[in-house]
Every structure is written in structure tokens, then in C-alpha cells.
């Protein structure tokens, strides 16, 4: 039982970090970033390349992932999403653009890094063993703690910095924020870059544990969508809760129904549909996001 909880927490911490980026982008721009999973994969590949090809320390690779993805996010917002949002009649048109970007990033990853599964050696050796009640490799604990620390830093940043305050104002009410002198374009760009950066950093963190491959992008996006649906789209606390809830559900489900992984996901998806039918705005969301 304790093992299940610990596994759930570990999964949840990563999931929460992915969901945070997605929900930030959604709350600022009302864009559902289909390319989020691809950004995560790209982040993983950047860390992999920095560490294994150039022999840099892991932490530098992680920073490189964050910086690279932040740059990509900023460019994508400025040159792609902004003009399309301005010119299109229906907001949903950005979905086609986001899907196009997802395909584009997939193509880039395929051309630059190939389709092989890539992984890095463990950053710390050894296994934490508490009387065989909880068994957890040290590197997983480290990554889990790092993820939790990042979530904490992110929340502090959103709550207490000027940029964070501006972004929260934007998410609440775009017009009012503009009237108060918030530069909407600038903070949309920063927000998008920040969201992409979070995706990249999670990719970098996980490349040491699960490794990374081209096909992971799409399923990751869908998982992230589910998390923000559980918690309520566009709400920071909701994304964190959604991440931990999904992590816990997966951990519990895979233990109970170990024989068939498909049934676990079927149960998760079906219960999510029922939950959303009863409470459309998720746990913390405002109605109609």
C-alpha cells in the first residue's frame, strides 16, 4: 500500500509539472497546446544530446533544455499564434495551428535525433529500501523531489513576482488587465515560453529514468489534457491536483489490475468522462474556463 502511494506521488510530481505548463498557456491565451507533448520530448532530447554527446554535466543539460524550449515557445507565440489569433474568426482555429506545430516538432525530432529510444545512465546509484515496504531507486526519489521543488518555485514565482502577477491578471480578465497597463503581448509571450520551458525540463528530468523516444509526444499531450480537465482548465492549483490524481490513479490501477494495463486506462478514462459530465469545470475550474 505504502509503495503504491509513493509510486503515485512520484508519477504525480512529474505529471503536475507537465500539466502546469499546459494550463499556463491555456489560461493566458485560450490555446490548447497540442504540441506540448512534443515539446516535452524535444526537451528530453536536448538534455540527452548535451550530456551524452558533449559530455556536459546533467544539470547543465537540464538548463539547456529549459532555455532551448523557452526560446522555441517564445518564437512560436510571437510568429505563429499571435497572427493567427488576430486574424481568425473563430478562436478554435488555433487548434489546427497547434496540431501543425506538433507535427512540425515531430518532424524536427525525427530528422535531428532519429527514432531510437534514448536514455541516460542513472545520475545516482542505489535503491532506497524501507524494510521492503517501500522500495524506490534513489534517482527516482531525486527526480521526484526536483519536480516537486520546481512546482513550488513555479507557484512562488506566479504568486510573488511582478511577471507572475501580470500573468495571473491576464488569465483572470484580459480586458481589465490591459486597462491596468499590462502589456498583453509581452506577457503572453513570456507565459508561452514559460509553459514550453516547463515541458522541456520535465523531458530532461525523465530522460534519465524512462528514456525518451519520438512516439511519446502524442500520448503525453493527451495525458496532460486529462490532468488539466480533472483539475479545471486554466487553474494552476487544479493542474497540480490533476497531475497528482492521475498519477495516483495510474499507480493504484496498475497495482489492482496488474494483469491488464488496458483495463486500468479504460477505467480511468471512463471515470473521467463520468466525472466531467457531473462536474464540467473540473475540481477547481471556473465554469466554461
Amino acid at each position, binding site marked *: 500500500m505504502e509503495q503504491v502511494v509513493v509510486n503515485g506521488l512520484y508519477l504525480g510530481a512529474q505529471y503536475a509539472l507537465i500539466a502546469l505548463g499546459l494550463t499556463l498557456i*491555456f489560461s493566458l491565451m485560450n490555446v*490548447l497546446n*497540442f504540441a506540448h507533448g512534443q515539446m516535452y520530448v524535444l526537451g528530453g532530447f536536448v538534455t540527452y544530446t548535451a550530456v551524452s554527446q558533449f559530455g556536459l554535466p546533467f544539470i547543465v543539460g537540464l538548463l539547456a533544455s529549459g532555455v532551448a524550449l523557452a526560446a522555441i515557445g517564445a518564437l512560436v507565440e510571437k510568429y*505563429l499564434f499571435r*497572427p*493567427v489569433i488576430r*486574424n*481568425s*474568426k*473563430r478562436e*478554435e*482555429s488555433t*487548434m*489546427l*495551428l497547434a*496540431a*501543425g*506545430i506538433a*507535427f*512540425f516538432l*515531430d*518532424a*524536427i525530432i*525525427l*530528422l535531428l535525433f532519429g527514432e531510437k529510444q534514448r536514455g541516460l545512465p542513472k545520475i545516482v546509484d542505489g535503491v532506497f529500501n524501507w524494510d521492503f515496504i517501500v522500495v524506490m531507486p534513489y534517482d527516482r526519489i531525486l527526480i521526484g523531489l526536483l519536480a516537486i521543488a520546481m512546482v513550488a518555485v513555479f507557484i512562488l514565482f506566479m504568486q510573488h513576482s511582478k511577471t507572475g502577477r501580470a500573468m495571473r491578471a491576464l488569465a483572470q480578465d484580459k480586458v481589465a488587465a490591459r486597462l491596468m497597463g499590462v502589456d498583453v503581448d509581452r506577457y503572453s509571450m513570456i507565459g508561452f515560453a514559460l509553459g514550453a520551458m516547463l515541458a522541456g525540463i520535465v523531458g530532461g528530468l525523465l530522460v534519465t529514468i524512462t528514456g525518451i523516444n519520438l512516439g511519446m509526444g*502524442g500520448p503525453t499531450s*493527451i495525458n496532460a*489534457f*486529462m490532468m488539466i*480537465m480533472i483539475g479545471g*482548465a486554466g487553474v494552476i492549483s487544479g493542474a497540480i491536483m490533476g497531475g497528482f490524481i492521475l498519477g495516483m490513479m495510474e499507480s493504484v490501477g496498475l497495482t489492482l489490475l496488474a494483469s*491488464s494495463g*488496458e*483495463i486500468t*486506462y*479504460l477505467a480511468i*478514462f*471512463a471515470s*473521467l*468522462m463520468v466525472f*466531467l*459530465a457531473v462536474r*464540467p*469545470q473540473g475540481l477547481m475550474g471556473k465554469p*466554461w*474556463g
Partner: protein
Amino acid sequence: MSNKQRWAAVAFFLLVVLVVVPAAIAASGRVDLYYTLTAVALLSIASAGVWLTFYIGRINIGQGAYALVGGYVSALLITKGDISFWWTLPLAGMFCALLSVLIGLPILRLRGVYFAMVTLVLTEVSRLTALALPFTNGAKGITSIKLPAELNIFGLTIIPDFSTLANPKLGFYWMAAIMMVLTYAVLWRIVNSRLGHLCRSLQQNEELASSIGVNIAWLRVLAYAISSFFGGIAGASFVAISQSLYPSSFQITDSVNFMLNCFLGGLGFVFGPMLGTLLLYFGWDLLFATGRFQLLIYSSLMIALMLWLPNGVLSLMDRKGARS
């Protein structure tokens, strides 16, 4: 456009689709194009359904689910029930429509991304259900399904047995093309009717529509059921052509593609999804020659098109209209 011009355009379109294209394919010897175009026609039927849900202001990423369900209904009826394909086709559509009423009643209360996400999850649910159910044969799928048999009414052969045809590919092409034309005729009729006006009112403001007496709950379920019917018959026809069906035959990628077809063609135009399907599917096929750069070029074109025409390709017609 006057009535006469409209009929002329329809006649021209029919002539091109049913006569000129097959003749051109026969002349060029590119027999593989039959399959490509058949697929385009069938996919555009499913996309037409997605378009109709867009028309009531919902983003539907769940059409793959209904295509899969329709496919399984048809495949199971043919293999286990020994029923002719031609009867399973409407049955598959009806089954999907009924199912969509049950699913739609709760989820159609959602809007925006929430609805989009639930339908996306629905696609995944349908795939996993197909894997888990006892009679769908799991991941192995249903294979060697019979070709469509003869359809006769009172001894009069309307559609010959496909296995006796000299060129079943051409037969399938005609079948798909005629179904596509009928689907879009129905769609056009719906849009230009009282129902279409009511749907537009939903798209703009549901509360307002409701306050002036439009039964919004009934309307959105109706539109969703019609949409799913299209998905079901498209899925069932695909089964007839490929003669096999797996849980992975229609998955999230397909659902997303159905939606992209609508965006690309233009959400404001009945024939948008048809054009969008043609461009996306055919474009992907044409780029096959570029090898490993296929995805790169395809996605770059998609992004460029979006920047240039964010309201869909058919919005070019709008511009021309505005200038003159």
C-alpha cells in the same frame, strides 16, 4: 447563385467525380489512386459529421470513436450474423446515432475545450473497449470480412456482388463517391433549413437561443446524432473496403484529422470539410516522394496555410466576394 447555376454546378461536380476522374485514372494507369480517392471520399463523410458539430459550436474530436463503433457493428453483423453489407451500413449508422444520444445527453452540456477533451477521451475509450470486449477479438481484430454481396429488391439487381466485379476498386470508388455526394447534399439541406438557422443560433449564443424558445438540448443531441451517423457509415464502409478491422483502425490521430479537415477547409462553408480532407489526405500522399522530409514539408505547409488563411481555404471565396 441562382437555382439554375446551382444545378449546373452540381451536375458538373457529379460528372467530374463519377465519370471524369475514373476515366482519367484508367487512362493514366495509376490504379492506386482509386484507393486514395475512395479513402478521401469516406473520410470526408466522417469530417462532414464533425463539421456539423462545429456548426452548433462544439469542437468534436471524437468522430474516430463512432467510426470505430460503426465499423465493429458492420463487421460483427457480416461475420457473425451473416447479414449483407448493404443492410449493415444503415444499421451501423443508426447504432452510432443511438449511442451518441446516450453519450451526448450528458456531455453536450460541456462547451469549448471541455467538450473537445471529453470527445478526445471518448476516442480512447472506444479503442480500449474494443480491445477489452469479449466478442471483438481483441487486438487481433476481425479479418477476412466478405466483400459486399449483391443487393436486390424484388429480384431486381441494384448493386451487383462486388466479388464478381471485374474491377472492385472502381466499384468501391463509385460507392464512396455517391455516398459522399449524398452526405453533402443532406448536410447542405440541413444548413439551409430551419434546423440550420437554429443551429447557427446555438453557435452564437446558447442562452439567448434558449431564451427565445429554442429547445437547445434537443437540437444539440439531434445534430450530434446526425454527426455520429455519418461517422458510423464512414467506418462501416471502410470495413467493407479493407475487409478487416482492428481496435487501432480509428484512433486519436484519426479523430484529430477529422477535425483538422474541417478547420483547413473552412468552418463557415458546407463543402469545407470535403476540400480539407482532399488537401490533407492527398497532400500527405503526394509528399510521400520526399521520403524522410515528408512530415517536415507537410507540417510546414499546414502552418503556412494557417498563417495565410486562418479561416480555412474556402475563405478565399469570401475575399473575392468582398472585392467585387
